[in-house]
C-alpha cells in the first residue's frame, strides 16, 4: 500500500493528518514542486555551559534515528545537507539553561536539529523562534539512559510566519523528557511533538501553551508511542483563542502497543474561548492493545470565558482589562509556572497580554 511513498506526496488536504491545516498558507513547505533550501539558522544565544556543544555536521553523519510519516519531515531530511547537533555530555548537569534561537525572514527554509542528552545528564534547552519567515523544522531528541532534559520551544513569530515542525523524542531507560511547546505567534504553526520509548522507567511529560488571535492557525499534533513496558507519559495542553478566524487544533494520539504492560498515561487539553468567531478543535485518541496497564485516560474541554470571575475581580476595584489579563494569566499559570524561569515566564505572559490587547484591531 506504499505508506512510504505517500509520505513524499504533496498533501491535498483530504488526508487525516492534513485535514485541519490551511495548505494554501504554507508557502509550499509541504509541496514537493516548490524548492526550499536547507539552512542552519539556529545558534546559541548565550555562552554554552561546560559539557555542552553545538556543532554543524554533515547530515550523512547523523542519519535519522526513526521513521517519520510526516511529509515535511521527510522533505527536510532529503534537502538538508547539514544538521545542527547539540550534545550534552554524559553526567553533565547544566545549571544554566542552554538558550538557542533562530530568526527567520524572507526565504523559506528547512532546518534539522539533533539533540543528544548524555547518560545521566541534566539540562534545560530553550529554542526561541522569531521573525517573519517560513520554516520547516525537525528536532530529533535522543535521551540516553538516566538523562533528564527539559525542552522549551518558543514560537514567538511575527504575524506572517509559517512554521511546520516535528519534535521527536526517543527515551531510553529511566530517562525523563519534559517538553514545553509555546505557540503565540505566526500565521500558521503546526507542530508535531512525537515520543517513542526504548527502555522501561522513562517518563515523557509534554506541556503546551498556545494563544491564537485573529486569523491565526495554531496546530499541535501529539503522538506518544508506548512501545515498551513500564513507561509513563503525561500530556497537558492549554490554549486560549480570541478574535475572528482564530483557529487551534489539538490532536492527542496515544498508542499503547501489545507488550507495553505497566504503561501509565494521561492526556488533557483545555481550551478557553475569549470571543465569538474563534474555533478550537480538540481530538484525543487513545488506542490500547494490552489490559495490563497502570492507567490510561484523556480529557478535553472547551469553555467560554467565565464572567463570574471577571465580576468578582472587578468588584474589588480591578479594572476590566486588568481582570481579563489576570484570568488569562491564571489559566496558563499552571503550566508556565513550571518553567522555573521567572524571566521566561514574564516574557511569555507579556507577549500574551500584548496579543490580547491587539484582538479585533
Amino acid at each position, binding site marked *: 500500500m506504499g505508506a512510504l511513498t505517500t509520505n513524499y506526496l504533496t498533501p491535498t488536504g483530504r488526508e487525516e493528518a492534513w485535514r485541519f491545516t490551511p495548505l494554501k498558507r504554507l508557502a509550499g513547505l509541504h509541496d514537493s514542486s516548490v524548492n526550499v533550501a536547507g539552512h542552519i539558522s539556529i545558534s546559541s544565544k548565550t555562552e554554552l555551559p561546560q559539557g555542552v556543544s553545538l556543532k554543524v555536521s554533515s547530515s550523512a553523519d547523523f542519519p535519522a534515528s526513526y521513521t517519520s510519516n510526516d511529509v515535511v519531515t521527510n522533505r527536510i531530511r532529503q534537502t538538508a545537507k547539514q544538521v545542527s547537533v547539540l550534545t550534552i555530555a554524559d553526567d553533565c548537569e547544566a545549571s544554566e539553561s542552554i538558550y538557542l534561537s533562530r530568526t527567520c525572514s524572507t526565504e523559506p527554509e528547512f532546518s534539522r536539529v539533533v539533540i543528544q542528552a548524555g547518560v545521566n545528564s541534566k539540562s534545560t534547552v530553550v529554542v526561541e523562534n522569531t521573525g517573519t519567515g517560513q520554516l520547516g523544522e525537525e528536532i530529533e531528541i535522543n535521551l540516553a539512559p538516566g538523562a533528564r532534559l527539559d525542552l522549551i520551544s518558543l514560537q514567538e513569530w511575527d504575524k506572517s510566519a509559517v512554521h511546520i515542525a516535528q519534535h521527536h523524542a526517543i527515551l531510553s531507560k529511566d530517562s525523563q523528557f519534559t517538553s514545553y511547546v509555546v505557540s503565540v505567534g505566526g500565521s500558521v504553526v503546526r507542530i508535531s511533538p512525537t515520543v517513542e520509548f526504548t527502555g522501561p522507567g522513562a517518563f515523557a511529560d509534554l506541556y503546551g501553551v498556545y494563544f491564537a488571535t485573529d486569523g491565526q492557525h495554531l496546530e499541535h499534533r501529539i503522538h506518544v508511542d508506548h512501545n515498551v513496558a513500564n513507561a509513563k507519559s503525561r500530556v497537558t495542553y492549554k490554549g486560549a483563542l480570541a478574535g475572528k478566524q482564530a483557529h487551534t487544533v489539538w490532536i492527542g494520539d496515544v498508542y499503547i502497543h501489545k507488550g507495553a504492560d505497566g504503561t501509565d498515561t494521561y492526556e488533557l487539553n483545555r481550551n478557553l474561548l475569549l470571543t465569538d468567531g474563534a474555533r478550537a478543535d480538540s481530538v484525543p485518541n487513545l488506542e490500547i492493545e494490552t489490559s495490563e496497564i497502570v492507567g490510561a485516560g484523556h480529557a478535553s474541554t472547551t469553555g467560554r470565558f467565565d*464572567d*463570574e*470571575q471577571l*465580576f*468578582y*475581580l*472587578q*468588584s*474589588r*476595584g*480591578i*479594572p*476590566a482589562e*486588568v*481582570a481579563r489579563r*489576570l*484570568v488569562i*494569566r*491564571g*489559566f*496558563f*499559570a*499552571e503550566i508556565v509556572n513550571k518553567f522555573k524561569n521567572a524571566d521566561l515566564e514574564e516574557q511569555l505572559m507579556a507577549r500574551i497580554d500584548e496579543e490580547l490587547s491587539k484582538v479585533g484591531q
Partner: protein
Amino acid sequence: MNVLEIKNLQVSVVTDAGNKEILRGVDLTIKSGETHAIMGPNGSGKSTLAYSIAGHPKYLITGGSVLLDGADVLEMSVDERAKAGLFLAMQYPVEVPGVSVSNFLRTAVTAIRGEAPKLRTWVGEVKEVMASLNIDGAFSERNVNEGFSGGEKKRHEILQMELLKPKIAILDETDSGLDVDALRIVSEGVNRVKANSNLGVMLITHYTRILRYIKPDFVHVFANGKIVEEGGPELADKLEEKGYAEYITA
C-alpha cells in the same frame, strides 16, 4: 460621613426565558457607622439587591436609583463602584484558578488606592489582618477561593474588606457556614473596621446569632422583592420566633 441611598429600586434578572422581575421598589438609606440587618425568606431578592448595587451584569435595573454621597452608582462600572467605596462580601465567593491570593490582594489594593502599596509595609499589613482572622499564611500562595472551605471563603471576603477599607459594605450571608469560633472572629473583624473607619454595613442574614456580635441599629424585613417592615434589634428576635409567615401571605 457617607450615605448610600437606595430609592424605589426595581430590578429584573436576565434569563434565557426573558426578564424576570425580582426587586419591586426597595427604599433604604445607610449612613456611615450604621448597621442595617436585612432578613427575609429564601428567594425574596436579598442577594439580587446586593448584586445590583455591586453592578453584576445579569441584573437589569428597570427603575429607581442608587446614590453614594450623591453620585449615581448605577452609572458606574463595577470597578468604579468599588473605587467609590462600596464592597460586597458575596454569598458565594468565586474561584479564580491560577490567580494567587497575594497577587489578587495586591492588584485590588493598588486599584482601590490608586498606587501600589509599599512592599515592606504591605506584607506586614496583610499578615496582621490574616492573623487576626485566623487565616493561615499559606493561603497567600493559594489560588483565590480555589478549594477553600465554605468558612474559609467567608473569612477571605472579610480579609479583603479590611484591606480595601470601603465606606459601605454589604455582607451577604457572611455568617452562613461559619462555625461558632469563626463567627466570632469574622464579627470581630467587621467590628474592627466599623470602629476604625466608621463603616456603614448592610448585613444580610437568616440568623440572629451574628446580631449578638454585630449589633444592628435597624432591622428590615425583606419579602417578595421589597422591604415590608422596619424596626430595631427586637424585630430580629420576633422574626426568629415567628418566622415570615405574616409577611408572605400579606
